[in-house]
């Protein structure tokens, strides 16, 4: 296990609602206990010995990094678009590798089986070819030109639609999804997942949405997303091994797994192996 790469990324350790409610959050990051306190505008993150770590409020969450020289926190431009509705969905704790949680977020082939009747349904199971690349200039994984038949693509969807997707992975535990916005087809809804690695085999997934939806009550938006993540959790806690295998011989991908294949390759190349299985089992 190496935390060397992982220490210099930024991670969510609480959401804005917790600090706004005056909570003091006792949590963990990369195996180390942390305390999150203060207010949303002046958050405080301290380690067990009282050392203060850098802390900032971004995308309705409190972020920190334990590293000496953290890489920049990924920029999500849509967060500046004030006509969007921003929805921090709360954390879902999952007993799996943080990297497995991200990989699941990047996967569409499971929609008809895991999110049946919502994000997919039989017989619409086919995944058409799409494009995946590592954008070297920004060091991000991008998957584009994805289309999928969805019975209820979002809370705002009134009928099944052919949803278009793009995925972006700006950091090993941060992924952003751009998808067709049902009430505003020319725009993208943005759904991100910020994964807090508690340990190599345990994480909290913090979904966050930036939507064009002024109609659906906030609580319903949260509930929609939470329901989907609970369905994912039942999968994630039953994958073996718990850690994400980086040796391509350990699990057998097919054509639709190109995003996962490139994500694993990218992690391996960077040495981002916290939560990964690096030796052959």
């Amino acid at each position, binding site marked *: 296990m190496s935390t060397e790469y992982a220490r210099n990324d930024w991670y969510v350790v609480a959401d804005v609602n917790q600090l706004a409610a005056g909570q003091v959050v006792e949590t963990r990051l990369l195996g180390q206990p942390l305390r999150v306190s203060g207010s949303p505008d002046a958050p405080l993150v301290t380690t067990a010995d009282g050392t203060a770590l850098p802390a900032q409020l971004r995308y309705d969450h409190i972020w920190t990094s334990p590293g000496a020289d953290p890489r920049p926190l990924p920029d999500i431009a849509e967060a500046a678009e004030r006509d969007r509705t921003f929805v921090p969905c709360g954390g879902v704790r999952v007993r799996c590798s943080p990297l497995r949680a991200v990989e699941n977020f990047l996967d569409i082939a499971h929609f008809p*089986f*895991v999110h049946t009747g919502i994000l997919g349904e039989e017989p619409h199971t086919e995944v058409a070819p799409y494009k995946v690349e590592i954008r070297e200039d920004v060091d991000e994984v991008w998957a584009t030109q994805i289309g999928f038949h969805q019975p209820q693509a979002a809370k705002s969807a009134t009928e099944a639609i052919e949803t278009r997707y793009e995925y972006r992975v700006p950091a090993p535990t941060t992924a952003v999804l751009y998808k067709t916005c049902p009430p505003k087809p020319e725009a993208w809804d943005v759904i991100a997942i910020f994964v807090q690695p508690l340990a190599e085999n345990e994480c909290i997934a913090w979904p966050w949405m930036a939507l064009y939806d002024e109609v659906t009550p906030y609580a319903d938006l949260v509930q929609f997303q939470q329901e989907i993540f609970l369905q994912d959790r039942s999968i994630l806690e039953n994958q073996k091994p718990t850690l994400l295998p980086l040796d391509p011989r350990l699990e057998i991908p*097919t054509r639709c797994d190109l995003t996962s294949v490139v994500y694993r390759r990218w992690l391996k190349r960077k040495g981002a192996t916290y939560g990964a299985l690096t030796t052959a089992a």
Partner: protein
Amino acid sequence: MGVGVGVRMNSVAVGLSRDLAPKRVMRAVAYGHDLAVWRDGENGLHAWDNRCPHRGMRLSHGFVRGDRLACLYHGWQYRKDGGCAYIPAHPGLEPPETIRAQTYSVIEKSGVIWVSTGNDAQGVDTGPVSEPLRSLTFFCAEAIARAAFEDTPFAGNLPQVESTGRLVAGGHPVAVLANPVTESETLIHVLTSAGVGIAAKKALSRWCEAARSVAERQAA
């Protein structure tokens, strides 16, 4: 001594036949291996490594379609021989032969499902003592669990041990089958004979619980 001790065993009792209905899947453990045991639509029985070759999902969470087991995660379907037959994301694709679930040898005998990690599951013929009474988990090692049945009185008397390894408790024949799940957890299946009435079965069931208390107290 319970059934099987002294007999060279190549198989372990992972569950009772009656607990696995057609087209159902259950999780089981044999010799430390995590298994998915399932019945196809024609009542055929299969025991596989509990791991989908695609992305490692436990196949015991899957579902049966006709004579295939499908994985819950992406719906990949596997034939009875373990070979992958269908990948829903690519309906036109013929899955390569190399994609296959690892299979184990499994049979049913005496109302019990037996799995071998070799290729010839045999099981034990418990003769007329093949009426399933119940399955219980004992949090102790196998030897302690087995011994507890001999050391637990039934209606005031210790059970007799027959030459077959079976026990007679209060005049009722009993076979105790043990499946060591870990060093400190043993799955016990208890069989009796078909002629035993309801009241006696209830009494035997309470005796099994008493044996569990004896065993777990000793292990603590």
